[in-house]
Every structure is written in structure tokens, then in C-alpha cells.
């Protein structure tokens, strides 16, 4: 099978859906000729023109609000938010307007839009261009949240996101744009709420999101060398979350670590760990552990920044301690 970059996969997904459905359009800063700073959208404006690949002023709340209005009236906008950090700018339009419209209207109005943005540290971009803020939106009922972990996932999830009748926030890891993965030529979609068991194992479940799936897979390799069999699961979408697959795995392995690049405090890792704890308690042979990013603003210095995110080595070390039955904290 051919291999393409995640960037190309996203581009293909959007182009395919724009050809399929004339109501789909892209709106955001420097999406047309510039094709975004990461060049993810390059070439789209040549095919679809500036009416459907719409460059905006630097006005995130404004174009987010415009997208909400367009979505409520028959269009399917794809909002391009240049950096995930700018989510804070669009929170009212995303969380007070887009997320709640269907509910507040008793189901009469809906907001089928995609907000595509990015996440991920270690690009030396410092505190305002490195955040992973998916927990922020996953907290808001009415929003769906997808977290592709490879080019293959990025394409399939993007196509589903565009066809969904709900606001979907899709987070791409900006460090993965040039990562290649096998992506079939033929059309495919990846359904929401269906986790992907990337690797089967019996001793511990490693649940990773986005780029942390790769971290989990590398950790599983390290662990295999120590005779520990780790299962790796990519939830793909955190809203909706495929609890059934996660629970089945944890009931099998009795142990789990949830790995995510958002801040650990009050984050995705805690939410998933809590659900496993509630629903698989009597199957747990060790505490379900969280490994998120450190609860510090992302520092600039490479020497510091690399300390803030989970690494395969740290995941493997924690997993080994859990499998060994070590007590992590004082009783």
C-alpha cells in the first residue's frame, strides 16, 4: 500500500468530501494560497476556488461564529484554527453557541461543523503555541472530539467528522504532519466511538491518544524485551469514547496506564482512568495510572520542554512497576 504523510491524508480527506458535498467549505487564516503554515491545505484553493477555501482576517472568534451560523443554515464548514492554543479565543462561539444549539433548540437546529486544529509540544514553540487542549472541549457536552494517531486515522476520522451532523473538534499533532503511514487509495471512513486495538497483550493496557499512541507502542516494545506483554489501544475519538473496548482490555490485563499529551491535572487521563476505576474496579490488580503532560506551561528551552511530555521510557518504567506489583504510593 502507498504511504502518505498525515498532512497529505488530511488534505485528501477534505478534498474528497468537498467533491462529494458542495456545502463543505474551509474557512480560516491563510488557508487558501498559503495552505496553512503547515501546508496541510496546499492545492485545495486551486481546485475549489476562494469561495470554498476562504481566507479570513486574523479574527478567530469572528470566523468561528460565522462558521456556526453557516452550519446552522445548511452548510458544512471546516474551520481551520491555526494553533490549538487559539481555542481560548473561540470558546464562546464553540462552547456556548455551537455545542449547545442543538440541545437548546430542542433538536430543531444543528451545527454540522468541523473545527480542525492541532496540539502537541516539543516543537520548541513555547507556551502559547504548544498546548494540547482537547480536554477543554471534551468537557463540553455537544462537541465531539477526534484525535488521529496516524495518517490513516487522520483521513478516515476527518471524513467522518465532515459528514457528522454535530460540531466536531479534530486535533492533529503538529509533529506528525510529515509522518507517513500506509493509506489506501480507495475511500474509507473511520467511525467515531470505535477504539483501535493497536497491539494485543495480556499484562497491562496502554491507552494512548494522538501521538501518545506511538509512545505507547514504543513502550510496549521496551516492555516486550522485559517479558511484559502490553496491549496498546487508541480510542481514536475521546467523545464519543469507546468504553467497551477499553473496559474489555483492562478486565483482561487488570492494569492500565492512560497516556495523553494534555496536562495531567483534570485531564483526559483522569477521566478515562476514573471510568475504568468505576466500571472495572474488581478486575484491577493495580491502580489505573495517568501519564499526561506536566502541569506547567510548556517551556521553550528544549532541555525543559522534553521533560514535560510522556516518553516511551517513562511509560515502560511505570508499566513495569505496576506489573511487578510495586506499591507506587504510601498506603
Amino acid at each position: 500500500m502507498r504511504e502518505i504523510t498525515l498532512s497529505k491524508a488530511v488534505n485528501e480527506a477534505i478534498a474528497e468530501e468537498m467533491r462529494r458535498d458542495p456545502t463543505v467549505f474551509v474557512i480560516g487564516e491563510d488557508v487558501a494560497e498559503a495552505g496553512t503554515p503547515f501546508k496541510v491545505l496546499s492545492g485545495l484553493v486551486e481546485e475549489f476556488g476562494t469561495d470554498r477555501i476562504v481566507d479570513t482576517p486574523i479574527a478567530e472568534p469572528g470566523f468561528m461564529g460565522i462558521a456556526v451560523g453557516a452550519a446552522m443554515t445548511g452548510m458544512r464548514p471546516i474551520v481551520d484554527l491555526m494553533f490549538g492554543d487559539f481555542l481560548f479565543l473561540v470558546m464562546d462561539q464553540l462552547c456556548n453557541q455551537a455545542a449547545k444549539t442543538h440541545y437548546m433548540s430542542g433538536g430543531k437546529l444543528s451545527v454540522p461543523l468541523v473545527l480542525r486544529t492541532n496540539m502537541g509540544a516539543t516543537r520548541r514553540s513555547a507556551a502559547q503555541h504548544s498546548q494540547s487542549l482537547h480536554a477543554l472541549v471534551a468537557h463540553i457536552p455537544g462537541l465531539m472530539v477526534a484525535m488521529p494517531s496516524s495518517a490513516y486515522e487522520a483521513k478516515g476520522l476527518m471524513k467522518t467528522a465532515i459528514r457528522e451532523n454535530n460540531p466536531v473538534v479534530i486535533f492533529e499533532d503538529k509533529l506528525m504532519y510529515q509522518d507517513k503511514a500506509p493509506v489506501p487509495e480507495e475511500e474509507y471512513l473511520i467511525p467515531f466511538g470505535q477504539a483501535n486495538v493497536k497491539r494485543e497483550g495480556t499484562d497491562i493496557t496502554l491507552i494512548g491518544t494522538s501521538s501518545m499512541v506511538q509512545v505507547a507502542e514504543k513502550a510496549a516494545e521496551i516492555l516486550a524485551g522485559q517479558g511484559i506483554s502490553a496491549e496498546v489501544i487508541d480510542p481514536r475519538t475521546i467523545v464519543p469514547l469507546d468504553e467497551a473496548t477499553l473496559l474489555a482490555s483492562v478486565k483482561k490485563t487488570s492494569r492500565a496506564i492512560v497516556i495523553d499529551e494534555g496536562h495531567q491535572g483534570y485531564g483526559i487521563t483522569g477521566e478515562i482512568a476514573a471510568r475504568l476505576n468505576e466500571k472495572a474496579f474488581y478486575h484491577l490488580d493495580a491502580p489505573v495510572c495517568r501519564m499526561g503532560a506536566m502541569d506547567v506551561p510548556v517551556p521553550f528551552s528544549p532541555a525543559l520542554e522534553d521533560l514535560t511530555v510522556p516518553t516511551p521510557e517513562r511509560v515502560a518504567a511505570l508499566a513495569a512497576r505496576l506489573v511487578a506489583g510495586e506499591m507506587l504510593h504510601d498506603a
Partner: protein
Amino acid sequence: MTHEVIMPALGMAQETGVLVRWLKEPGDPVVKGEPLIEVETDKAVQEVEAQADGFLGSVSAAAGDEVPVGQVIGKIYVDASAAASRERDETVPEPSRSGPEPAPSPEPASTAPKTEAPQASNSLGVKTHSGRVLASPKVRRLAAEEGLDLELLVQAGYSQPFHVSDLTALRSIATETAAQSIAPASAGARRGRLDAVCDARNLATLREQFSSQAKLDLPPGVFFARFAAQALRASMDRTDELVIRLEKLEGAKFAQPTLYIDPDQSRLTTDPTESEAEATLILRDLTDSALSGVMLIDDFSGPILTVARDEGRGLFILGLDYGTEHLTNDAAIAVLTYFAGALADPLVHLA
């Protein structure tokens, strides 16, 4: 004759030392020149040898304690019994941690799955809360499903917390324990003996009434077990589970023993259990034999109650053998007195 173990001064300007761990436990024999403690000074850990032969008695410092140089941290006794009796010397503060002292692991934690053998420690050390067994939710559930008591692992010295990997060990300990439910009396224990007689006719009448009015044929052992349990509770304020093991001598042979669990809290018609729980008390029913009392060669350390019958005088002949580790003399007297009273007036005591 005792020898004091003292926090040594190992450094030039050392005021205190950290006791890393005891290499012996209280009661262990100690040979002069053998490593006895590990002490940390100036970030270096050194072994300190015992200065005398004997047995380690009370210790007043626990692993991790910082102790001023020159302070007594334990005592070596020349004989074992003295060491044992001094283990709870009230003048010496208890070690802050109960159970076998956890030693800080000098190496990073093992990543291999836990083996069946008891592990000495883990990197944090385990502080058990009083009575609370630390175990994973899963091993708790599985142990409960199999009727296994995690406490057995604690008693066997396995380090906590327990995980599913400890189940294998727990199963084998439980099997051994069941086999040894008639446990050998410990060497130092002493046994006592009490005898009594009481009227047997009222119980006979009561059993006839059950038979004629309720079509219930209740063997005397049912009543013996119930009243024995009542006697233990009433005399000793026991609220835990009482297991009465009934051994009936039929002619010249003991029948298969039967177990009654909490018979004082069950219906009279409750059948004996099939389980192999450890007996609290053995009840020997001699009423269908010619014997009026037995004192067998026994491994059981708990109380043994015998009931024989004097047919001619309409009396039960009662005997209570007991070990001092289970019953004091006063408690034994109270138990047998209650039991005799209940047999003499069973209707009242069935209420």
C-alpha cells in the same frame, strides 16, 4: 544478662545515624561478629556487627529512623525466652512500623512479575494500617470467590500489597492451614483440665418432644455444639466466627467429624457444614460409648470439650481440656459452668 545495641559513631563529626534496616528480627539468634544492622552516615551505608552472642530482643528504632549516636536501639539477650518475653518491653517505644521490617531496596524495582516466594520489600516500604490488608481489588474479589483469607498471606510473611500473582501462594497456604486445622500445641503452652456433671434427663425429654411433636430427630451433638458455642460467647464475649468440630465416638470408633459454624446463630436443624474451617473448639461426644472421659494424644491446641453419659444416674459427665493460649483458667471455668447449666436446662438456653 543482656547486651545493648547502640547506634555507633562511624563518622568524624557524626551526631546521628539513620538506621537503614535490621538484619535480624526480634527473637532471632545473633552471633557475635555477624552483621546486625545497616546504618547510613554521610550517604554511605555500612553494616554494623553484633557485639555479643544471644538472641535479639526488643528494638527501639525502626528502619528509616534517625537516631543520635550512642543511643540504645536494641538489646541482645543470652537466651531466647528472655528475648521473647521482652519483645513488648514497655519502656522501649514500639517500632513505628509493624510486621517484618521493610528494607529499602538497594536496586531499582524488579520489573519481573512477582514470584510465589515472599518478597522482602519494595522501594517505598509498606506501612500497613492496623488490621488493613493491602490488596488489589481484583485479588480481593478472587480470594473472596474462592473463600480464601488474605490474612493468611500476612501471617506467612508475604509482603503487601497483594496481587493476583499472590493467589497461588495463598491457595497453597490455605490448603496447608486446612490440613493443619488441628494445629500442634505450641511448646510453651500449658494445659488445664476441668470436670463436671449435670442432669441429662431434661435434654432427653426435650429431644423426645421434638421427635413426637415436630417429627424432628435431633441428635444430642446438635445441642452440644450449640451450647458450646453459646458458652464461648457468653463467657468470653466472642463475636467472631465459632467453629465447633464434633467428633462422635460410636462404640469404639470415632465417626467422621462434623463442623458447625456459629451453631448458636443457626437453626437447630441446620446441617453441619462441609467446609474445612479451622476449629475453635473440639467437642467429643462419648454418649454412645462406654467411655466416660478421654484425653487423647492430640495436636489440637484449642479447647476440647468431652461429653459422656452416666446412664444409671441420668447424668452427663463433662470434661474441658484447654490450653493457656486460648482460655484462661477463669474463662474455662465460666465456659464449662455455662455449658453444664445449658445441658441441665436446655429449653431455657435455646431461647
